[in-house]
């Protein structure tokens, strides 16, 4: 299972891209923001796309009573996510090496993929919960209390995925480079599984 092992190792290593590149990106454009503001969500924290974007987004959000964008130390996720990602990358590399030497079954590759997917879905669920809280837990003394036509209070949860119009802003939320590297790594582990299966069957 030499080929499959190498692919598995490469796939696992792609997860490390999340330490360098953003997982997600949310951009906010408006008529008076021809150069949109944005935030890049890393597994270690949230940063502005441009130097002062976070400050400026917070400045605008205070009108509608949203909390400030959390700093790394204000969310447990930014401590746990790096450990989980690092751990999964290490685990994948170990599985790949052991697979390379034929010490493990190719099924471990699939096992790693399933575990990564489950953790990924949990991560997305958690992220979505945060977006919901961020967009709905508003200061009761907010300067502007907007309501929908039916009278219910307006909330400002950014979309998890895709484009949404929020007041004067166009909000776009999409995976970023780190996420694409994660997806590619997961795809490689699946390829490793099939190639490993073929190699395993030829050898045995």
């Amino acid at each position, binding site marked *: 299972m030499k080929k499959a092992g190498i692919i598995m190792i490469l796939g696992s290593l792609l997860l490390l891209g999340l330490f360098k590149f953003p997982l997600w990106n949310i951009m906010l454009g408006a008529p008076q923001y021809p*150069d949109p503001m944005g935030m890049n969500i890393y597994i270690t924290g949230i940063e502005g796309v441009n*130097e*002062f974007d976070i*400050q*400026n987004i917070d*400045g605008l959000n205070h*009108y509608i009573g949203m909390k400030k964008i959390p700093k790394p130390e204000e969310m447990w996720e930014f401590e746990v996510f790096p450990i989980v990602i690092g751990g999964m990358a290490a685990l994948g590399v170990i599985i790949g090496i052991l697979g390379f030497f034929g010490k493990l079954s190719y099924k471990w590759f699939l096992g790693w993929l399933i575990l990564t997917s489950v953790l990924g879905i949990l991560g997305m669920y958690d992220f979505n919960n945060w977006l919901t809280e961020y967009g709905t837990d508003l200061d009761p003394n907010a*300067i*502007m209390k907007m309501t929908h036509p039916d009278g219910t209070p307006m909330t400002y949860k950014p979309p998890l995925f895709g484009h949404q119009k929020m007041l004067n802003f166009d909000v776009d939320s999409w995976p970023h480079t780190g996420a694409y590297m994660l997806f590619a790594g997961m795809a490689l582990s699946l390829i490793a599984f099939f190639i490993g299966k073929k190699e395993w069957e030829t050898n045995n």
Partner: protein
Amino acid sequence: MKNSILYIFSLIISASFFSCNNSENSKNGDRGALASSAAEKVYVAPGEHDDFYAFISGGYSGNLTVYGLPSGRMFKEIPVFSQFPTSGYGYSEETKPMLNTSHGFIPWDDSHHPDISQTEGKLDGRWIFINGNNTPRIAKIDLKTFETTEIIEVPNSAGNHSSSFVTENTEYVVAGTRFSVPVPQQDMPINEYKGKFKGTLSFISVAPETGRMNIKFQLIMPGFDYDLSHPGRGKSHGWFFFTTYNTEEANTLLEVNASQNDKDFIAAVNWKKIEEYVNNGGGKMMPAEYAHNVYDDHTHTATSTMKKEVLTVDPTEVPGAVFLLPTPKSPHGCDVDPSGEYIIGNGKLSADLTIHSFTKMIDAIENKRFDGDAYGIPILKFEDVLAGTVKQAGLGPLHTEFDGKGNAYTTFFISSELVKWNVETQEVIDRQPNYYSVGHVMIPGGNSAHPFGKYAVSMNKITKDRYLPTGPELEHSAQLFDISGDKMELLLDFPTHGEPHYAAGIPAEIIKENSQKIYKLAENKHEYATIANGDARVERDGNEVHVYMTMIRSHFTPDNIEGIKVGDKVYFHITNHEQDFDVPHGFAMIGANNAELLIMPGQTKTLTWEPKKVGVWPFYCTDFCSALHQEMQGYIRVSPKDSNIDLSWSLGED
């Protein structure tokens, strides 16, 4: 009656003589199909940018205005020599030192000739310089912030007119005096002018990295009037040329007495030679008093230093450094073509243009073909330096610019036209009427080795009927010509602010990317800045009260202050905490005897207020900053002088 008929008759004769090609255009301007094509050429669609910046001097406004070409839209007025209540320039504590001089605080000047910094003869777009004509000064404007960042006073000068032109690598910005005066100044009879009054030509070095200006030396010349100047370039790099008039050295009724000599001079100055002389210890230090004012982008504060001496050079002590080129009829503009070979003297009392050859000048100097001297400065023979004459080109030539394609464009004040001619053949190619009485013309890069010959802007002195009337006082009119073809095509009329004396144009892409959007709060080193919101406070020192205030959409911190007393001097040191492009806040205090402040993101400015009346007095933000701009306000409680109310301040407390 008879006289006026004669007058009209002579006007018609001269118009037909000098404007033989004009007759079609001059009737109605351009109309119909031509007009719609002109409209397309100046149309910059909403949201799109102009191709060129034009920096047009404000003349008696003391400022510099920024326009776009080809649209003719005005983008900004940059305060330079004049107090500007719109932003608080010259009123705020930080900028008052910018207007300091040896005569004290001067709130105004007459700004004349802007010129953009160059590297190797090309516009580099780092700074633009402009001269204050009345109280002689040279200012430098930083083209990252579009703010005036340095002003140096020029001693021993009066009517700083043949200024502020830069050399090929911005080694120097040069300032010549229009009025000759006693040097050093002294109490003496005016009618002893001749031989005793002197004219100074000042070479102000510009530090290559910082742009810091310093008067390297002043050349003490005979008491002529030094009118305009331009640097040599290319082969003539290292020389500087100055037109003179009043070589008669008259001191009264100059319009007659200074117009007697058939020829005045262009003074050719080999500044490299004098620089070498000075670097080797030459020259004489003379006591002088002049202010040097520098604004720092990080402290957001200007400082004014009074200098005590200046290095002077007697031209007769540096042989081979200065020569006089006879030039007919009180020449005004002194313009050098992009190759550096031709020096054009615009004899303002004549119909001809005189073109001197740099090569012939050097040849005459080397062969010592002199025709006497003036106060020891050798005079060259007119015929020896003359390259040619543009004959009967128009009436009253003033200024010439170049398109980089071998053509020159000269303004004729009296016959009110712009004339295109070929520099080599000296033949007139085209002429277009100007509305009216054109002074300067500007082609972007026109004072450099590499002009951008697409547009020419002529700046007219007289407006009359060009726009909707606005009472007796009118803005001056400018006209934009397309000069890309053989014939010049009038595209656009637009009004200019103050009185433009020259302008400088530059392709937008050279500077627009460098234009700064905000000042970084983290780099704010202002002595009274409030960087952390928690540091906002009020401190008393005797009757001086310092308010350390911050502003961000949409409140001041603090917003309510008590414990101020009649007779206090209150300094509002206000820091704008925004870090977003185009979010300035304003500050206005009722009863302040100065101006408002307009504070850019990350900047700190200080306004002084001396409350005179007991009461509760509001202040507010003057720049519509946000949906809650009208809520951006505060109160100051002013108590009687002898009250014992302690200072207190608050935000968001009842």
